[in-house]
């Protein structure tokens, strides 16, 4: 209980620090929203008037507090290039990114566990070596290149989906999931390979332990020993990797969205960076940061639940 409180305290402090640093970073750069909006031909008076209007002339710290207050209340400011609240702009798009992340993550879990168990069982046999090499190969393929290959093979050659023809959830929910399946798989394959590698070596570590011999002497089948006894223990060190994977998937979706022309959060982020629309960039970055930090926090708690022996001071 004390542990949970302490962790939660750190969580809050971390979130505050992150928000402060991000706000600071986006406010010390030359050229603010007023300048970008009015362009180079504006007079000093015009710029000053708009700054006053947008509240850019207030002292830094009070601007931070009012921005933070707004942010917690769900007011992320106004996008100056679209002239609509950032919240409206991003809420629907986050749905797409989250859908892809979840689909990719499910794919990773579904495939990496059985493959890892199988290769650990066949350790150093031919099958294991072949799969391990393929694994290394798949780990080396950038997700977006895999996306291009998938577009080429399944989209253009076999024509089982239309590249670039994204269908929104409102139009047709089945088609929406079907279209997002391809980018999700493209993101998932390199991560699956990585997951197999880590879980496999973790399983091989377990092999040497005495409980495995004990389980075998009680007449348990190999399937049961590998799939239940060993897996349970081997998965613990892999949890951190899975949490990191989710963070990476969110980051990778920024790129993969471009490959499949999906109007998600990544496309918005990239165009906002190009337009220097900092309200949007700042909001997206902070939301992603919050997701990642909260997830790490949950994984820390999960560790304690799964294995109470873990010393949580470190």
């Amino acid at each position, binding site marked *: 209980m004390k542990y949970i409180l302490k962790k939660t305290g750190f969580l809050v402090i971390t979130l505050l620090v992150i928000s402060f640093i991000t706000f600071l970073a986006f406010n010390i750069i030359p050229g603010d929203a007023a300048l970008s909006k009015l362009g180079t031909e504006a007079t000093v008076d015009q710029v000053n008037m708009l700054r006053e209007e947008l509240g850019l002339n207030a002292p830094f710290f009070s601007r931070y507090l009012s921005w933070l207050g707004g942010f917690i209340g769900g007011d992320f400011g106004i996008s100056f290039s679209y002239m609509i609240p950032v919240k409206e702009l991003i809420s629907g798009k986050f749905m797409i990114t989250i859908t892809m992340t979840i689909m990719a993550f499910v794919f990773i879990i579904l495939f990496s566990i059985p493959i890892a168990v199988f290769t650990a069982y066949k350790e150093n046999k031919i099958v294991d070596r072949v799969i391990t090499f393929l694994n290394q190969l798949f780990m*080396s393929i950038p997700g977006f290149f895999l996306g291009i*290959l998938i577009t080429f093979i399944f989209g*253009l050659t076999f024509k089982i989906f239309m590249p670039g023809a994204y269908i929104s959830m409102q139009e047709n929910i089945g088609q929406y999931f079907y279209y997002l399946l391809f980018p999700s798989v493209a993101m998932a394959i390199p991560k699956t390979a990585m997951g197999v590698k880590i879980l496999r070596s973790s399983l091989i570590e377990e092999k040497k332990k005495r409980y495995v011999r004990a389980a075998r002497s009680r007449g348990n089948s190999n399937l049961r020993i590998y799939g239940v006894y060993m897996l349970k223990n081997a998965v613990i060190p892999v949890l951190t990797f899975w949490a990191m994977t989710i963070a990476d998937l969110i980051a990778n979706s920024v*790129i993969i969205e*471009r490959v499949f022309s999906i109007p998600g959060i990544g496309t918005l982020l990239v165009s906002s*960076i*190009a337009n220097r629309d900092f309200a949007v960039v700042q909001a997206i970055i902070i939301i992603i940061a919050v997701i990642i930090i909260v997830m790490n926090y949950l994984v820390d708690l999960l560790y304690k639940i799964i294995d109470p022996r873990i010393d949580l001071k470190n």
Partner: protein
Amino acid sequence: MHKKKLKINKFGAILSFVIVLMIIIGIFATPYDPNKMDAASKFSAPSINHIFGCDQFGRDIFSRVLVGGRTTLLVGGCTVLIGAFFGMILGAITGFIGGIVDEILMRINDVVASFPSILLALVFISLLGPNTGNVILALGIAFIPSFARIVRSEFIKYKDADFVKSAKLMKVGKIRILFVHIMPNIMPTMLATAAIGFNNAVLAEAGMSYLGIGVMPPDASLGRMMSESQAYLSVAPWCAIFPGLFIVLMILGFSLLSESLNRK
């Protein structure tokens, strides 16, 4: 300390060597001028004359891949140098000295490290504006925490080792202990980390350039070649596939190498 026997992965070593050699030769000579347009060979398929084919302007893809690979190598190398240098200093200070400085720096470090490096680099790029130098700077900064964390744990490992204790007894200076006595011991780990960092930098650079906010023209980039040729994927798939394959082989070579460095 027992001797570590390095068993280098031959396939990985050869692959990396060939790729780096090709890029180095490419600095002095490429089969064609990478920017020369030739309407006659527009979209020509891979053949003896153009082994990787030609793009929408009739430029030779193989030559362009070599030039793009150079940028990739430059970005990856410089990024690792920046990350390793500052990570080493940070890790040495926190690991060797410890205490409250360590506690605070490492907390910040953990938060930054949990953030995907490409997103961090995107933030920097959005602040600084895209170009090759800024990509290197952004990725370099993004990689400092991962190096710092590893160096720190290595320093902690050796902090109380016998050879450090005896050096202290002989009144060897702290700085000297850090850099002359401990540093050589952590080199194998550093090399393996650098190889992984290099791969991540290559991936991140390719991804950012693919998005159009990384390396900017006139600098060539594999990532941008892929995004430009994606529109012609049905007519000339080789325009996107060869630059991609080049990246895959580059990363594969280096990761096999780093694997063998890691194994003791």
